[in-house]
């Protein structure tokens, strides 16, 4: 990204109600900001040894930014049921932001009792991460006794994890816990090889240990960045799940001087990530070096780069390289009449909003499109084996030179980890034009 782009991304989010955390602990945590002048990379441990220090960033941009730290987590063995594979990951309870309509609220854990439980769910056959909410349910037990009430984990995005389901789950006692996850039928349009899938409720369960060793491991594994990088435009690279298993004897993590966050040239679709953009972006074998064969690979919810989408790519009306709104990148293409994504011989407008840098799909939005200020057509959230998550709908008689406006009726109703909390909120319409078709 060039510096000149930065100003464009500064958008006024004051229109939205951003509340201060209500939890009693937040004032103390926020206060840490003041004491951080020279030792940001090695802060004093907080009073609660089960939680690392959380730092507030002042003057966060209204865009994707680099967080203060890279999370550490424990990966558990993926489990399978029906068409799904689910990979559980555990970290310490940590702040995130929940979204209800235009209302944003930071969740701040009161203490370190428990875990931040994350689950990536993917289609076993294709490796496509299913980045949509379907009302998953999570129940935790210990010794056959229910721990807390059942819950619906938040659909959530993070720079490291991409799309996942997660929540801070309070645990009072150490020991072996069993988590049971119920995935009801997926209430979203599926196309291509995914059509007709995910119609049965599936239940998956896994066990995890919660103990002092776990707490020390995930807290010690946190990697803080230099304070002057905090809040800079950019994003952490998608995590290579195989490398972050702190149960491994050797911890490569701390020796990794090559900070992977992409504030220096890794931007959007222009440059391939070191492990990703092969022909088959859903390839299970991203982990090409083979060092971590002992660990199942967890796919990252990364959308294909723009150039892999067929059809006529709509151009931003303002002449920019790519269409953006609220710092999200909008890949928008118009398929030839009669494509497999329409019933008749209409054209198909495919809109694929994604995060910059990591191309994480932005799920649970409401989008509509209009041509030359005509009637607005709502676009349906869809998952396709080839085009992954997108919003699409049939259009007729759209021609070169037409103006297409994509309205964002609601921004992504997914919870956010640090670094995504100020982006994808204020999202003005995306103005596009249909270019002359290159022959």
């Amino acid at each position, binding site marked *: 990204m060039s510096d000149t782009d930065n100003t464009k991304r500064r958008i006024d989010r004051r229109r939205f*109600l951003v*509340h201060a955390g*209500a*939890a009693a602990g937040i004032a103390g945590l926020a206060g840490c900001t003041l004491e951080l002048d020279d030792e940001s990379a090695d802060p004093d441990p907080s009073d609660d040894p089960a939680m690392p220090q959380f730092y507030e960033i002042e003057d966060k941009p209204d865009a994707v930014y680099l967080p203060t730290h890279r999370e550490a987590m424990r990966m558990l063995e993926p489990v399978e049921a029906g068409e799904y594979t689910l990979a559980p990951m555990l970290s310490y309870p940590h702040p995130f932001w*929940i979204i*209800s*309509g*235009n*209302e944003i*609220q930071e*969740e701040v854990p*009161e203490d370190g009792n428990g875990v931040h439980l994350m689950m990536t769910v993917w289609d076993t056959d294709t490796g496509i991460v299913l980045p949509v*909410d*379907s*009302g998953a*349910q999570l129940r935790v037990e210990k010794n056959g006794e*229910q721990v*807390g*009430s*059942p*819950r*619906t984990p*938040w*659909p959530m995005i993070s720079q490291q994890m991409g799309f996942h389901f997660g*929540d801070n789950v*309070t645990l*009072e006692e150490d020991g072996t816990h069993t988590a049971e996850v*119920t995935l*009801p*039928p997926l*209430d979203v349009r599926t196309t291509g090889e995914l059509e007709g899938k995910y119609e049965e*409720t599936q239940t998956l369960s896994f066990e995890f240990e919660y103990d002092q060793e776990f707490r020390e491991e995930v807290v010690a594994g946190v990697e803080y960045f230099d304070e002057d990088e905090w809040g800079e435009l950019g994003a952490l690279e998608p995590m290579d799940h195989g490398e972050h298993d702190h149960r491994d004897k050797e911890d490569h993590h701390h020796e990794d001087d090559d900070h992977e966050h992409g504030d220096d040239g890794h931007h959007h679709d222009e440059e391939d990530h070191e492990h990703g953009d092969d022909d088959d972006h859903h390839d299970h074998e991203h982990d090409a070096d083979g060092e971590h064969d002992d660990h199942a690979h967890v796919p990252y919810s990364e959308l294909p780069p723009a150039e892999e989408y067929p059809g006529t790519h709509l151009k931003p009306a303002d002449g920019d390289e790519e269409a953006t709104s609220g710092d999200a990148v909008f890949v928008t293409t118009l398929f030839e009449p009669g494509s497999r994504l329409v019933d008749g011989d209409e054209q198909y407008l495919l809109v694929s909003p994604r995060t910059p840098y990591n191309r994480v799909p932005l799920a*649970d*939005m*409401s989008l509509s499109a209009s041509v030359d200020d005509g009637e607005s057509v*709502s676009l349906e*959230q869809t998952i396709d084996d080839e085009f992954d998550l997108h919003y699409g709908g049939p259009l007729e008689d759209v021609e070169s030179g037409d103006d297409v406006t994509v309205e964002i*009726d*609601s*921004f992504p*109703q*997914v919870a956010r980890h640090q670094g995504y909390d100020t982006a994808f909120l204020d999202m003005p319409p995306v103005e596009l034009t249909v270019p002359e078709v290159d022959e």
Partner: protein
Amino acid sequence: MAVAVGGASAISACVDEQDDIDVPTGTDDDSLPERQHAWDGFLETDDDGNVQPPEHHVLVALSLEAKLDDGDGDSFDDARETVETSLRTLERAYEWSNDGLLFTIGYTPSYFDRFDGELPEAVDLPEPEPLTVSEDPAFDEFDAVIHLASDHADVVLRAEEALFGELEELNDEPVEDDLTGVFERLDDHRRTGFVGEGLPAEHTDVGGVPDSVPEDAPFFMGFRSGFRESQATEDRVTIEAGPFAGGTTQQLSSMGIQLEVWFEQENHTQRVMKTFSPEHAEKDLVGEVGEALGASSGLTDERIEATEADATNPGVVGHAQKAARARENGNPLLLRRDFNTVDGDSPGLHFLSLQRELTEFRAVRDAMTGADLDVQTLNNGIMGYIFVDRRGNYLVPPRSHRSLPPASPE
């Protein structure tokens, strides 16, 4: 005190309290209403005219022990008389009011299966079933449930004990007969609860009930409910034709509630949006616990009609707004008599509703589920916060047929 713990120990714990209160006695004549569910006229109302439900509740699950020797139920005559005598004992002992005791007995489809005849056409009583794709409840397949309700927890408990032969006197009235031998009490399915200002906040010692439950809230989720204009009248839920005219159907869904996320992650604005509607939040119509709403949930036709549009923009819909889509000419179909619980040492709700036909419950539930709405689960009213474990459907016959009715009485 509460009714969660039954049995002798609970009763002895109540005795002291019993000395302190003077519970009005009831009547032995037939002046009591023909409708078992005629409660509203015997309950108090608040300043806004909203009926205040009794504070303490027990649902006693029953399995029939008496054996049927014939298909039309005549062989039940002795057992029937035992049931009627036992219920009349309760009526003699306590005034029919929130200060005394209100109760109903309802029967499941499983109960009626033993008879030769079919239920009359006017009775719509299907077997319970899952009503959303994400629930997998167990069903009440036992025979009957007695719903005991009073503002005095000890009245509810004593009534239950009297029904099962554990008391010789009830509020100074002799207990002449009881249900033992006719019904077996199913302790695993016994359910208890409470509703009323301040009662939920008394349970923050229970795991899963955060300290942040508002002091004044009558329900766990933090808001008033049962507004006059959101409740069906007793007339509207009463069966009008056939031998069970004057009865009603009762739907009972027992569910866990996730309160930690609700109170400690969501903020008040979000809770208002999801409980009522986004516009309730925007216009600040609710107040802290719903006190600003008066006698209605503030659902104008416009707010109800806006449900689908709200799902699109801003992307969140309210529970009340959604459910109200099932109203008939603006009139609610259900009379809610739900109450909270900490059964199983976990917060929950026993959602008890009365309606003329179970089909009407289904319509309201479908509207509340909002499967037709394109909205994220956790923004779909309170759908992300409730977890239905059990469901049962019941016929609550009119008083004249309340004791072991056959499927098609004369």
